[in-house]
């Protein structure tokens, strides 16, 4: 019998706000342990949580971008559990009245568009950080992350392969980045993903026993963990084993999934309404105002780029995957109208530098106009393409515009014909032997002569112009 995997994903997104979800503590990453806490996020008696307006707005923005219905009445609940990563011993989350429900994301997977339904989007608080000391009987607790606003985005089990899961995550991340509501940085934990997976006979509409997969630290890890889990489950089912509902952890080092807990020990969270937070009834005009702040989404942008610019699908996909790069591209075109050249530079040297420095394209300090100027200098033969690359690197290092580097170093290419003719004449006079060789049929003597001219001009001579002059002077 043929089996197919059925996968649902849960993404946790740390929302970009100045302060935590329910108190005024800072959300900065990497600060001194336990220096970002207050009576509210420490759960001290008598403290009252109050929802961060910005976090609420961000969650509605995400919900709208994912085509969800925003709930008319939104309510918070307490999720009770005994893992000591929240000082309150419960987490403020949402149970039956989340921010929004029933949306979808169109993803492109294997050249096809597929609709992945979004079940719900809810707002909750993040837990603190536990550090387990190896060997010792203690754990250390840092409260800084406790209470940071976290958005949970849950899909329906619409994903049917590890590849699709990967494509969904990439597509979702790109949408979330466009919305500018989160850093979406998996390394810093601002974006996390858990997966639910089961297998069933192909074509059946019954769901098998669901396994929850945790501890995947990158989209590639999600894909790999799912691939392993799909094979493990398929082998088991084919061998006639009955799978059980359980939670498994991905062990990246050993490339296996390990049993963490079974259903019998499954959490019973005893949700109940959070009495310290009153319900939220968003005004329709407030929701509409947020809708207006949603920028052109990546798929719409890709469509527009395809219609307007003569670029390959690959180029468009790469440009559009990063909003900053796409914006940069369009800004640059305002001053230099050659889409292919601009795309090549952005996807080549500029992306290489931003990857190397691990920063965004705008943080490199080269303005789109600055890049346009540089490209114009190449076209006007003021500098060579090779020089332009060096200039760009130096401009990034010195944090100035490329044109400044060109001017300060006097790098402009020497293209003045009259001046170059004089130089060529001197060089030919000095190298009569090579001239004879060339005329005698040794074609590579010309390369030597060109090299001499380059040396004389410190590399600034325009090779095309020298070539032209030489061929004329040497009688061709």
């Amino acid at each position, binding site marked *: 019998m043929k089996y197919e995997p059925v996968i649902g994903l849960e993404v946790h997104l740390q929302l970009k706000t100045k302060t935590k979800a329910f108190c005024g503590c800072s959300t900065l990453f990497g600060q001194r342990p336990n220096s970002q806490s207050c009576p509210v996020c420490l759960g001290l008696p008598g403290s009252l949580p109050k929802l961060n307006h910005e976090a609420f707005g961000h969650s509605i923005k995400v919900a709208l971008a994912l085509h969800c219905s925003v709930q008319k009445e939104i309510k918070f609940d307490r999720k009770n559990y005994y893992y000591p990563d929240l000082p309150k011993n419960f987490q403020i989350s949402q149970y039956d009245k989340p921010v929004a429900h029933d949306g979808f994301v169109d993803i492109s997977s294997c050249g096809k568009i597929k609709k992945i339904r979004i079940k719900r989007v809810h707002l909750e608080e993040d837990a603190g950080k536990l550090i387990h000391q190896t060997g010792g009987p203690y754990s*250390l607790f840092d409260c800084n992350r406790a209470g940071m606003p976290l958005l949970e985005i849950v899909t329906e089990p619409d994903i049917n392969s590890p590849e699709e899961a990967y494509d969904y995550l990439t597509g979702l991340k790109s949408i979330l980045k466009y919305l500018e509501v989160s850093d979406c940085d998996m390394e810093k934990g601002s974006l996390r993903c858990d997966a639910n997976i089961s297998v069933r006979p192909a074509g059946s509409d019954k769901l098998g026993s669901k396994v929850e997969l945790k501890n995947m630290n990158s989209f590639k890890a999600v894909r790999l963990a799912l691939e392993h889990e799909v094979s493990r489950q398929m082998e088991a089912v084919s061998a006639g084993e009955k799978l059980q509902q359980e939670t498994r952890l991905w062990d990246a080092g050993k490339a296996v999934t390990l049993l963490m807990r079974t259903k019998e020990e499954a959490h019973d969270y005893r949700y109940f309404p959070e009495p310290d937070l009153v319900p939220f009834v968003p005004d329709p005009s407030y929701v509409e105002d947020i809708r207006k702040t949603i920028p052109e989404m990546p798929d719409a942008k890709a469509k527009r780029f395809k219609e307007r610019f003569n670029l390959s699908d690959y180029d468009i996909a790469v440009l559009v995957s990063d909003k900053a790069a796409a914006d940069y591209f369009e800004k640059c075109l305002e001053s230099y109208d050659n889409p292919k050249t601009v795309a090549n530079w952005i996807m080549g040297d500029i992306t290489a530098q931003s990857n190397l420095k691990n920063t965004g394209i705008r943080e490199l300090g080269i303005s789109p106009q600055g890049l346009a100027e540089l490209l114009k200098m190449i076209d006007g033969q003021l500098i060579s393409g090779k020089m332009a690359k060096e200039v760009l690197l130096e401009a990034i290092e010195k944090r100035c515009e490329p044109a400044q580097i060109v001017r300060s170093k006097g790098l402009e290419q020497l293209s003045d014909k009259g001046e170059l003719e004089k130089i060529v004449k001197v060089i030919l006079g000095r190298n009569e032997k090579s001239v004879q060789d060339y005329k005698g049929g040794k074609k590579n003597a010309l390369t030597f002569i060109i090299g001499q001219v380059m040396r004389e001009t410190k590399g600034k001579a325009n090779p095309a112009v020298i070539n032209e002059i030489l061929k004329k002077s040497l009688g061709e």
Partner: protein
Amino acid sequence: MAGKCGKLYKKAAKVTKVIDKATVKHVALLSRLALDEREETTYSTQLASILSYINKLNELDTKDTPPTSHVLSNLRNVDRADVLKESLKAEEALANAPEKEGDFFRIPKVIEGK
């Protein structure tokens, strides 16, 4: 209580759910309480009696009463601007901790699933 919309009436057929030992064991596990056999029996009896008392409320007809999770039933949309407030200093946050290590709270090790 019976005034506005609620009519008191007896749900004679309604039987109070007995708290059995299995439920007590489950709740004890969730609360990380170690109970011995005798305690399990004691608590299942006690909890059953408490719950049956509370169950008197089920005798009230709440058909037309919307669920109320908040006393301030008309209050909505209470939020705050995303403005930074001064946090406690690490020393202050840790001041009441029974055990600490450096800038951290020190707690008994709890590994999930173990």
